[in-house]
């Protein structure tokens, strides 16, 4: 998608110039057509980034049952980037859930911008980072529940790792960003936060490289078959690995599986047991440079540097003391002795021991934080340390979370963006930009600068547009795309208008939801166009009432006038027969909306007129005739009566004009009609005059009747 950034060493340019463009990705399109298929492929974009591909089979004379082709819908770079979350319904749930935090944050942002404008001062950063953290936590909670691998007391003591919900790397990625960018208050505790992060997500590395998690899983599988664990190198290896990455609860739990704890052994292995327990106690008393620990986790917390320093020195002194203790000599179990000593080396921060206890550089990195450099702070020194760990434990290929972490440590926004986009997809990047911009000024400038190369939009906007495209391509998520599009100040509305236009307006439900969105964002022209499309569709598909209704809503005078003419013919034809009843409802609908009905107002009056004429025919005489006469005058006076209807109206009224008993129209009324007739004769000379299908003598017979009526009226007056 546009906006994909490629990592580069030169941080001043976004994309390194390369004369050879990147090789395009190759997709293989699956279809169940039997070969051969023709090379001619028809393509059409649907909404968003869904591409409809039509494949044809060649025209062969052979008779087989194969169809002539297939249409396949291809969603490009959508929700499937993160292959761990391949459940479309779950993806939609994340998409729905992120709307509200995103929208609230945008509102807050606008409100704060307004406030700072008002006070002519920069907004207060502290307040803002509070909102960003709130936002980050809300998004984080959507990505899955917090993984806990904490063993409880009641359960099987041999279950070291609990089976919990598979952690997602999406959540892991988001938490990394949160730790570094959103959670500013906790910056002094970043190392400890990373230790926690690894304990939640170390399992994610297992698929791609060795990890402590994998080691523990393998050991746990073997555990049930092992009689005396302390004789197994795997047992000690598991303990030292868990200790190196700071999973103290697991270490203590494993240590207590040691054979010397068994009741029948206590007597003979007293010292040994004492040493094991001493190590276990030391492990559980480890000072931690953090505010608090979740329940079940071990260690002692210190949230100020000097207290921690004191405790740390004291603790290390205890370890050294134990290390030099004479009890070791009394320990007869050699493997226990060696391994416990090894654990002490880990606690004392022996680089070599830590390196051999951990499986990859991130684990070694955490071990450094825990046992060697608990005060590491500042991204620069953290980055140097990370580089050192990579040198000590080189990996052939880096996991995407590792790449993301390195990008963050390197303070290279472009790499972070590229990793978010490449590894986690459009959802991640659209939402993560808020964290990035809150994280650093450099990132904010990079993301918000308007670029000519992007058609005048910023990188942030381009990512939102891309995500909106993903939302647009699904029938259930397109309705939330407007929220993201509206936050795109430059191109958002343009894309929103196209998205709304591409909705099937002739489906009532879709149309109504469409109108609601248009109402929200004041897109009146878009909604009236949708109503117009619906109106024309209904009208042409035999639903005349719905057609007129929607065209009225769209205030489409031109089409309504055309319809009025059609209806005129229709009503004129059917007025006498019983089907007239059916028109009542439609005419009712037209009646009250005279303002928008255009020529249809005329139809309403015409209906009344025709009805009176009908009554005359039925024998209800004088009174009806007078009413009909009045209706005729009203119609002829009314400017909304189209000129082409004048003659048919008068022709229909011949009986009224020639009324036997007495003239129904007075002199002025008759003169009005005569004037209209005169006007009509003049109009007939113009080239654009539309002739109506009446007998050729119609005009002359009307004129004769009017003249007669005028004569009689003069006499009567």
């Amino acid at each position, binding site marked *: 998608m546009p906006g994909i950034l490629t990592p580069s060493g030169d941080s001043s340019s976004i994309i390194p110039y390369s004369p050879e463009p990147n090789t395009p990705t190759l997709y293989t*399109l699956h*279809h169940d057509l039997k070969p051969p298929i023709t090379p001619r492929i028809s393509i059409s974009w649907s909404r968003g980034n869904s*591409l409809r*591909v039509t494949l044809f089979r060649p025209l062969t004379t052979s008779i087989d049952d194969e169809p*002539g082709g297939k249409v396949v819908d291809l969603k490009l770079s959508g929700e499937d980037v993160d292959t761990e979350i391949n459940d479309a319904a779950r993806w939609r749930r994340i998409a729905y859930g992120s709307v509200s935090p995103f929208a609230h944050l945008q509102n807050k942002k606008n409100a704060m911008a307004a406030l700072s404008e008002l006070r002519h001062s920069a907004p207060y950063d502290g307040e803002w980072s509070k909102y960003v953290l709130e936002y980050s936590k809300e998004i984080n909670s959507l990505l899955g529940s917090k993984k806990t691998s904490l063993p409880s007391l009641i359960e099987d003591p041999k279950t070291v790792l609990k089976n919990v919900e598979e952690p997602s790397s999406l959540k892991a990625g988001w938490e990394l960003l949160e730790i570094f960018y959103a959670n500013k208050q906790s910056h002094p505790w970043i190392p400890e936060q990373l230790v926690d992060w690894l304990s939640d997500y170390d399992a994610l590395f297992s698929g791609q490289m060795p990890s402590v998690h994998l080691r523990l899983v393998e050991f746990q599988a073997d555990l049930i078959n092992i009689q005396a664990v302390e004789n197994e190198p795997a047992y000690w290896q598991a303990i030292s690995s868990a200790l190196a990455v700071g999973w103290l609860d697991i270490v203590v739990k494993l240590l207590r599986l040691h054979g010397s704890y068994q009741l029948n052994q206590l007597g003979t292995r007293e010292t040994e047991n004492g040493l094991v327990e001493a190590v276990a106690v030391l492990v559980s008393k480890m000072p931690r440079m953090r505010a608090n620990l979740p329940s079940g986790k071990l260690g002692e917390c210190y949230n100020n540097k000097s207290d921690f320093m004191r405790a740390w020195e004291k603790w290390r002194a205890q370890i050294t003391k134990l290390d030099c203790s004479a009890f070791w000599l009394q320990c007869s179990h050699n493997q226990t002795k060696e391994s416990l000593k090894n654990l002490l080396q880990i606690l004392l921060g022996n680089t070599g021991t830590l390196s051999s206890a951990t499986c990859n550089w991130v684990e070694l990195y955490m071990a450094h934080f825990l046992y060697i450099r608990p005060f590491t702070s500042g991204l620069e020194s953290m980055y140097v340390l990370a580089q050192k760990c990579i040198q000590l434990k080189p990996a052939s290929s880096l996991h995407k979370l590792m790449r993301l972490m390195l990008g963050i440590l390197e303070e290279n926004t472009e790499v972070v963006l590229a990793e978010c986009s490449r590894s986690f997809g459009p959802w991640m990047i659209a939402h993560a930009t808020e964290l990035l911009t809150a994280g650093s000024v450099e990132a904010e400038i990079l993301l918000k600068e308007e670029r000519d190369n992007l058609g005048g939009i910023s990188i942030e906007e381009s990512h939102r547009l891309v995500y909106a*495209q993903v939302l647009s391509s699904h029938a*259930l998520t397109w309705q939330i795309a407007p929220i993201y599009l509206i936050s795109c100040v430059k191109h958002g509305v343009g894309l929103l208008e*196209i998205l709304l236009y591409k*909705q099937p307006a002739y489906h009532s439900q879709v149309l109504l939801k469409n109108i609601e969105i248009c109402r929200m964002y004041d897109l009146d022209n878009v909604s009236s166009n949708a109503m117009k499309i619906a109106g024309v569709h209904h009208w042409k598909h035999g639903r005349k009432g719905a057609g007129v209704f929607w065209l009225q809503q769209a205030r489409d005078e031109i089409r309504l006038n055309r319809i009025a003419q059609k209806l005129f013919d229709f009503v004129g034809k059917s007025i006498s027969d019983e089907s007239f009843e059916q028109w009542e409802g439609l005419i009712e609908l037209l009646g009250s909306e005279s303002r928008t009905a255009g020529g249809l107002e005329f139809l309403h009056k015409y209906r009344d007129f025709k009805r009176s004429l009908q009554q005359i025919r039925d024998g209800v005489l004088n009174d009806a005739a007078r009413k009909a006469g009045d209706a005729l005058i009203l119609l002829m006076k009314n400017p909304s009566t189209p000129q082409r209807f004048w003659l048919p109206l008068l022709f229909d009224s011949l009986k009224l004009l020639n009324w036997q008993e007495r003239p129904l129209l007075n002199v002025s009324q008759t003169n009005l009609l005569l004037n209209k007739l005169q006007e009509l004769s003049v109009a007939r000379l113009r080239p654009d005059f539309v002739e109506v299908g009446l007998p050729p003598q119609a005009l002359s017979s009307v004129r004769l009747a009017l003249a007669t009526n005028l004569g009689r009226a003069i006499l009567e007056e």
Partner: protein
Amino acid sequence: MEKSMATLEKGTICSSWNYCSLRLATGLVDGTIVIFDTSDPASSSFTSTFKFKVSDERVIKVVWAPPEYGDAIACICSDGSLSIWEEAAEDSENVQWKQCACFGGPMDEILDGQFGNSMSTLKLTIAYSNGLVKVYEILDSMELNNWQLQAEFQNVTDSVAKFGKASCSSASISWNPQRSDDRPACFVLGFKSDTPQLNSPKVWEFDQDHQRWLPVAELAEPDDKGIHVYTLAWAPNIGRPYELIAVATSNGISIWQMASMPDPSGRLSVEKVAMFPCHDNEVWQMEWDMSGMTLATSGTDGRVRLWQSNLKGVWHEQAVIEPAT
């Protein structure tokens, strides 16, 4: 991530989706049109709902009319005719497809036809094999059977020059997709013909004041003006200060930027921003996505290619889609 949507009838050779991608019209070799629909807007399984014969010749192209004018298609057949068919129910009859109008034929062969998107009226541009372009306009917005010839011209920038006896084998028309009456109606047209002057893509704009069409830009460099144009695609513009038009010629695919506003001479300045040679691959179709950010092309190599611009504004081939064999 692909999903099968519809299975086509034997002998299908072309297809076209309507404005909301919820109706599919396919053309068959025996002159039949098959329409596919879904039962509801969220569904993606299409079944055939209408089948009718529009010609005895093969249907080579189907184009949907803008939805403001109903559900209608224009079918271009191999005999050079273009017929307009509309779905309607008349006087309590069932819904059916009826022919409304027909243009061209064996003596007056049509190569391409495209509907415009002006909000107030429906225009239809037709390109003929003799190198002529005709623009028709609808007379009654509720009827598709009354068309008036509004203009007739040749695809040349010099209005004085006339070229008789041109012989064109294909033409491509692409309207500016923006549906607005604020901007004049505008389309781009190119030919594949034996008359070099006709070939290069020219942008035509309707001059409302004088009721005439004017060439406002030419999308060709001086030395390849006579090159054969296979197909053209005008990108939707959601806010860029310039227009983007993709041109496929025998030299390859090129992407042009065109100014939205004319210079003092009334011309729109153009710039070729990308050129991709396509060896032995004749581009058949080009489509822009709704944001105008991605261009999809298909050609004689049997592959679909996606083209995008990166953050530096450099266009590149993003992906290749190849049907499994």
